[in-house]
């Protein structure tokens, strides 16, 4: 009984939506971490993650282990995030917020062009150690595979790790304080600049996890593979509230499922409208995102 339920069309759509949704969630989470600390909307977030996953994951071609390559990608992501904050973003603090948009858009262009110049735009196939073949149940497909389960586990693990880090560790407390009240944090001896760099590193790392999942999936790795996902991630972050990591995660899952249901029951061409409808409805009800802490207007 249970198993036919898992293979039912509705579960089919829920699994497909969740598989896409956790990717959006991770990207949204990474955008939120940066937004909280530096109030920068990083359009290059997806491209940075793509680049790190190219550096790490193409090592598989040299016969290296998938897990090792994943760790390499993460390390490159951390480094990349930190350097970006130090070199490109730091000069922008105190400047109009819109300037950061231009810089990150420019950076996005540079990263994708460099990636195409090095690796060309041909899709790369990443062989995963876990099978991507979906489970079958009495001849019917259940839209879950060992890799998809791993994908869920990895995403949940990363989200939990981020939550624990922010909520229960001294580093997390310093990160939050630096984001909420940088001047006060400095007066209390917190090295705020270092915290901002660490925030970008963490955020880039979370993005890399999303990019590696994308690259390992059925569309492979190519230089623009994160473009659409970044936009969906941004929408998810806005739906959840840009200062709420929990909201980002839930927003991502919502958008993933909404897209899948529009696709299945309305029109494939209009799939992306699913997420947009959620966005519009959410903002009309709560103008600062569903999970925003309502802070009164400060005069």
């Amino acid at each position, binding site marked *: 009984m249970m198993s036919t339920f898992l293979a039912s069309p509705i579960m089919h759509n829920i699994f497909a939506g969740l598989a896409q949704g956790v990717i959006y969630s991770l990207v949204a989470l990474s955008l939120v971490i940066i937004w909280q600390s530096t109030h920068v909307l990083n359009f290059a977030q997806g491209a940075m993650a793509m680049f790190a996953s190219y550096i790490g994951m193409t090592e598989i071609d040299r016969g290296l282990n998938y897990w090792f390559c994943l760790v390499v990608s993460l390390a490159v992501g951390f480094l990349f995030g930190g350097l970006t904050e130090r070199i490109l973003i730091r000069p922008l603090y105190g400047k109009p917020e819109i300037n950061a*948009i231009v810089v990150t858009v420019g950076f996005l262009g540079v990263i994708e062009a460099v990636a195409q110049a090095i690796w060309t735009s041909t899709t790369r196939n990443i062989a995963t150690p876990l099978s991507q073949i979906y489970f079958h149940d009495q001849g019917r497909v259940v839209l879950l595979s060992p890799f998809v389960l791993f994908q869920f586990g990895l995403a949940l693990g990363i989200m939990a790790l981020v939550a624990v880090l922010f909520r229960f560790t001294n580093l997390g407390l310093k990160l939050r304080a630096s984001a909420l009240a940088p001047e006060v944090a400095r007066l209390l001896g917190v090295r705020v600049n270092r915290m901002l760099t660490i925030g970008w590193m963490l955020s880039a790392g979370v993005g890399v996890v999303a990019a590696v999942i994308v690259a390992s999936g059925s569309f492979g790795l190519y230089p623009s593979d994160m473009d659409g996902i970044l936009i969906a991630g941004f929408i998810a972050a806005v739906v959840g509230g840009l200062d709420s990591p929990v909201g980002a995660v839930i927003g991502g899952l919502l958008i993933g499922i909404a897209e899948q249901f529009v696709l299945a029951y309305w029109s494939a061409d209009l799939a992306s409208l699913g997420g947009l409808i959620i966005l519009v409805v959410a903002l009309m009800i709560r103008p600062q995102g569903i999970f925003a802490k309502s802070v009164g207007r400060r005069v």
Partner: protein
Amino acid sequence: MKWFRSIVAQERTTARLTGVLAVTILTLAITFVLPPVADSQLAGGAAISIVILGLSWLVGWSGQISLGNSGFMAVGAYATGIWAVHHGSTPLIFTFFLATVIGAISGLIIAIPSTRLSGPYLAGMTLAFSAAISPIAQNYTSVTGGEGGLFFNTLTTPHWFLGLFSGQNATINANAQWTADLAVVVAGVAFFFMANLFHSHTGRAMRLVRDNDVAAELVGINLPRTRTVAFVVSAAFAGLGGSVYVLINATVNPSAFPLTLSITLLTLMVLGGIGTLSGAVIGGIIYAFSTNLISHLNSLTGINPTSNLGANMQGIIFGVLLILTMLFAPHGIAGLGRRLRFFVKSVRRVASVSTGE
């Protein structure tokens, strides 16, 4: 007519008219000197500058950010395209009017749910609009022509204008210049209108709302209505710009209006300088001619421009230029000029103070 007076400044309208007219005529004169390719590029730049001006008004004067202006532009563009396919022979002025009005209506539709939003939330809401345009255009093929879009050929160069040209490439040159001149004239009209708007009652109210919405409310400004007006005007300009843009290109299709175009518009506006006429002009110039500069820089590297590295070098240079401009001219290129003037002025003042004492 109260609403009309509220958006047209009463003072110094003639002065502004003279200013815009001077620049328009100068630009028209320049089109006679420019090679035809540059004329074509200028035409596109003029169309985009109208859109940038509308965005600049929204961001610079009312303090609202929008990622939806490519959507408003697409609405004006499709209105133009659909009209041109069915009624190709109507006077252009009517087409422009139609695109402007339909653009404004789309702005109204987006503004109503957006007045309570700000910052990235407003960006998200407006992005939803521009992101929806492409799938909708693809889905309703019978009206929009789907993926391939619509094709029309409405811009015909008049005979008297053709007569000005002779020689082997006469038609090519004449057509290129005619489209450029047409786009420049439309842009001139749009810029004149905006110059007045900047100094109108509405413009001043807008500034107050941007700088301090609480104070604005206290002096009796209706916040939602002011914000809505800002959107409607911005969308009307985008609609007009989109109309000129597709008439120049003789085709309208979804891939011309990806949501990344909104980000590009924002980028061009910031590069030029936010909230000023000259900023929008510079943004249009960057749009039109940056490719030339980039190709030139690319040729300096000595890499074969058709190789994989060479073709992508173009994008690398573009991105690097964007970043460098923002790092070294954070208030845009127009702002750079202003800062220079301020610097000269303050040096003079310091000099006069020290000698005066």
